[in-house]
Structure formats: C-alpha cells, structure tokens
C-alpha cells in the first residue's frame, strides 16, 4: 500500500523504509495505476522518510520519469537523508528530475 496524496493533477508519494529491488517491483504496479490517470501531470516522490535506497530505486525513478515525460508530465523529488541523496547525486538524476527544497 502506497502512502500518497492526489490533488490538482499532482500525485505525491511518500516512501519510507527501504527502496531496493524487491520493494521497487512491489510498488510499481500501484504507482503506475495511480499515474495512469491522464489528469496526473506531475509526480512527486517524498524521500524524507526513506532509510535506504540502492540503484533499483534509481531504475524505478528513471522508469517513472520516462512515463511522465512521454505524456508531457514531470517528476520531482523531495530529498531524503544523506545516504539517499548520496546515491541520487551519484546517479546524476537531478539533472533531469527536479529537486524540491
């Protein structure tokens, strides 16, 4: 079950705990169900409560970015802790995905 908020064309998903390969696979169907609504123009991930992420999380983000971009939408991230951000910086994803303050 995803913790999310949907308002005015924006879906904000709060992720907590660990985002690894297993978790990424598990949440993907629900996530894609949420953004399948053509009214959704913006997808925001809130990583504040995320304790661990590996490159499977990066893969998941790239996948959602491609999906949203293909229909003119956007993806943004509310940064998590130092560990998560270290991986985000290493991936270079903030060059294509907006980092919210």
């Amino acid at each position: 079950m995803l913790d999310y908020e949907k308002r005015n064309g924006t879906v904000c998903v709060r992720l907590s705990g660990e985002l690894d390969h297993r978790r990424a696979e598990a949440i993907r169907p629900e996530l894609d169900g949420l953004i399948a609504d053509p009214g959704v123009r913006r997808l925001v991930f809130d990583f504040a409560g995320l304790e661990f992420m590996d490159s499977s999380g990066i893969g998941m983000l790239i996948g959602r970015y491609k999906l949203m971009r293909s229909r003119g939408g956007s993806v943004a991230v509310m940064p998590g802790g130092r560990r998560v951000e270290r991986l985000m910086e290493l991936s270079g994803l903030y060059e294509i995905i907006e980092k919210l303050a």
Partner: protein
Amino acid sequence: MKIINEMRLDFWSRPENEALARMVISAFIMPVNPTLEQLGDVKTAVSEAVTNAIVHGYREAKGLVRLRASLDEAGGLSVEIADKGRGIEDVDKARRPFFTTMEDSERSGMGFTVMESFMDQVEVISQLNSGTIVRMTKRLAPAPVLAREA
C-alpha cells in the same frame, strides 16, 4: 594481515534475501564500530551485488547466492558475493555506468558504479553459464579490542 572474524551465508535467490544480506553484513561489521557512512556504503554495495546475482545471474530463477566476509585486525573488510548463474558476457562493459542488458526492466545500470564508488576495491570474476564472483574490500575503523580478544 591476521583475520579476526569470518562468516559465510548461503541463501536462495529470492528478492527478500536482498534485505537479509544487508542485515547480515551490517551485523558482521558492527563490532569494528564503522561510521554510519561506512555502514551505509557497505550495505548498499552488498545490496547491489546480491541484486545483480538474483536479477541477472539467475534471472529470478531459483539458485544459491553465497555471501562471504572476513575482517582483519586492522579493520579491513573483505566481502564476496558469488552465484552460479548465467555469468557476464563482457565484464568491462557491464562495469560501465548505465550499461544494462535489461533495457525494458528498469534496471538503472548503476550497480557496479555504486559498488566502485562505495568500496575501496571491486573485483569481478565471471564466466558465461557458470557464474559470477564479486569481491570487494573496504577499510573500516581499526578494531583494537577485537584484535586483542582474537
């Protein structure tokens, strides 16, 4: 360098064992008091290697993944993740950032880049249809107390 502790764990290539491997390696290095940064680095690197074994080595079919680790008296960690899966056709290519053989499955192709960034050394030995071994080392805090006890 004198080894002060060693461990070995075999587990099925099931995705829930990615978390198991992270917990085990964390518990194993805890006695040398790693910094939070070092702990996170090791957990992430092991997670990447184990995920590679499960996703690429076995393509999510059932197989055994072996995690081995040792600590030396100077706080040096050696960790090895081995599978008997498909192997890697071209290791140099696989180690390139963003290279992936699974374009459609949302693999980022960053696994080896993460391992190389977070560990001191990464060695990959692979043979097609016989498996892959990833060996990594990282210097953690020295462990004077443990070394004396051993």
